[in-house]
């Protein structure tokens, strides 16, 4: 009972309190920019249940999934390569560090010219924006592998590939997941920026259009939708992580913690 309470009630407490406070604090608001939460929720219900789901949410999700998928593959493979080989690191890290600091908004024009506006461009931008945290975390995670484990792999004749797959990557996973977690939220943000600078539909576009036409409840509704989308994606992610890193939690808390 108490465990269930702390599992489910505790996480809900803070957001619910904040929503309630917001609801009452804003209920009499006449400010254009801070409409009553009531209006935002109504706009949310009108727009996202389920009017714009097909036209905006689904395309957004597809672009997001594609872009993030590319980032995961690129980030982990390149990150592993950079983590393992000092030579690769010396040769490539100036390039990666250079591109990492590119303000994405400034690259959009170049991207637009090469890829044109639309889904491809947005997926590419999302991939570009969210690869870095994964790459960096993977590199650092790989480098932090306990040398004793690597030596074990080497002495038992595991090939380089087998060592990478069976020893180095699993040991780097906690770091990799930290990177993925950061990248996930970043990808959602880049999706909006991409939408903003090249979009014709999609969640970010809806928010920005609402913004431009001073439909502020619409803007809040879109932000709410975004937050919920982010939350959902994150919960899925956490569930995956919970399974994949079960060993890690056990290992790092290998004690009876009575709570």
């Amino acid at each position, binding site marked *: 009972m108490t465990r269930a309470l702390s599992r489910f009630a505790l996480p809900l407490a803070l957001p619910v309190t904040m929503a309630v406070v917001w609801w009452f604090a804003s209920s009499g608001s006449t400010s254009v920019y801070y409409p009553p939460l009531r209006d935002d929720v109504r706009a949310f219900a009108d727009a996202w249940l389920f009017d714009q789901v097909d036209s905006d949410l689904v395309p957004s999700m597809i672009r997001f999934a594609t872009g993030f998928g590319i980032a995961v593959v690129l980030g982990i493979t390149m990150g592993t390569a950079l983590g393992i080989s000092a030579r690769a690191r010396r040769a490539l890290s100036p390039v990666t560090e250079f591109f990492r600091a590119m303000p994405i908004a400034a690259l959009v024009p170049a991207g637009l010219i090469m890829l044109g506006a639309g889904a491809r461009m947005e997926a590419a931008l999302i991939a570009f924006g969210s690869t870095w945290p994964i790459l960096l975390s993977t590199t650092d995670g790989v480098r932090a592998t306990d040398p004793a484990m690597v030596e074990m792999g*080497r*002495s*038992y004749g595991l090939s380089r590939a*087998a060592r990478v797959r*069976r020893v180095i990557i699993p040991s780097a996973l906690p770091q990799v997941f930290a990177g993925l977690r950061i990248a996930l939220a970043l990808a959602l943000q880049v999706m909006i920026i991409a939408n903003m600078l090249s979009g014709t539909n999609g969640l970010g576009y809806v928010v920005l259009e609402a913004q431009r036409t001073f439909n502020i409840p619409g803007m809040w509704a879109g932000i709410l939708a975004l937050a919920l989308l982010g939350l959902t994606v994150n919960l899925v992610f956490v569930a995956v992580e919970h399974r994949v890193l079960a*060993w890690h939690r056990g*290992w790092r808390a290998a004690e009876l913690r009575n709570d």
Partner: protein
Amino acid sequence: MTYGSGPTAVEAIRDVSFSIRPGEFVCIVGPSGCGKTTLLKSIAGLLRPTHGTALIQGRVVDGPPEQLALVFQEYTRSLLPWLTVRRNVELPLKARREKRDECASRTVDALHAVGLSGFEDKYPWQLSGGMQQRAAIARAIAYRPAVLLMDEPFASVDAQTRADLEDLLLRVQQETGVTVVFVTHDIDEAVYLGHRVIVLSGRPTVVRETVDVPMGWPRDQVATKADPRFVELRTHVLRQIHRERTEHPPQTH
């Protein structure tokens, strides 16, 4: 073999030359910090010696040779925490593409032999220290290596289990003819197990003496240890070490 460079460099091994015949069981004893682990790692090709070479069957070791198994002194850190005990033992077998059945049965046998039946599906960090050490031994045995390097493999198990494991190791060695290099601090154990005992000095490390153990096989915990030759040999080795201690008191670098 020197770690680091400049004024804080540590010369771990100076001149340690010996050769090991295939199928031989060699025990190495020597004071703490004299370079036994370093030596084993050099033989395993995990460290590249700064001077000299390690040879296996005439070939220079420049990477881990094939069919070699190593039981690390740091057994805890050499077990992969994301794999269960079973998978830890299976890992090198699978990497060598053994048949699945073969992997499974060898793993079960090895874990049974070290007394870990029933713990196959636990993670290493759910085991006690001695159990982890035995899991690492099981991994080495299941691998059926041609060369087996063991770094104080029985340090964390109780006396009774230790005796059982010693006999297990002797049996395996007899059956498979594996070459064993065995580091231990227990002189009785060294004399009981080895064809030869190599006594190392303190740093700068040299071979102080190589003691042949002329006793026959199979050996027996009670009979062998009661053998006057055994008693004489162990006393001899102990005396060597004691003399070493007085001649070269533990020194700073």
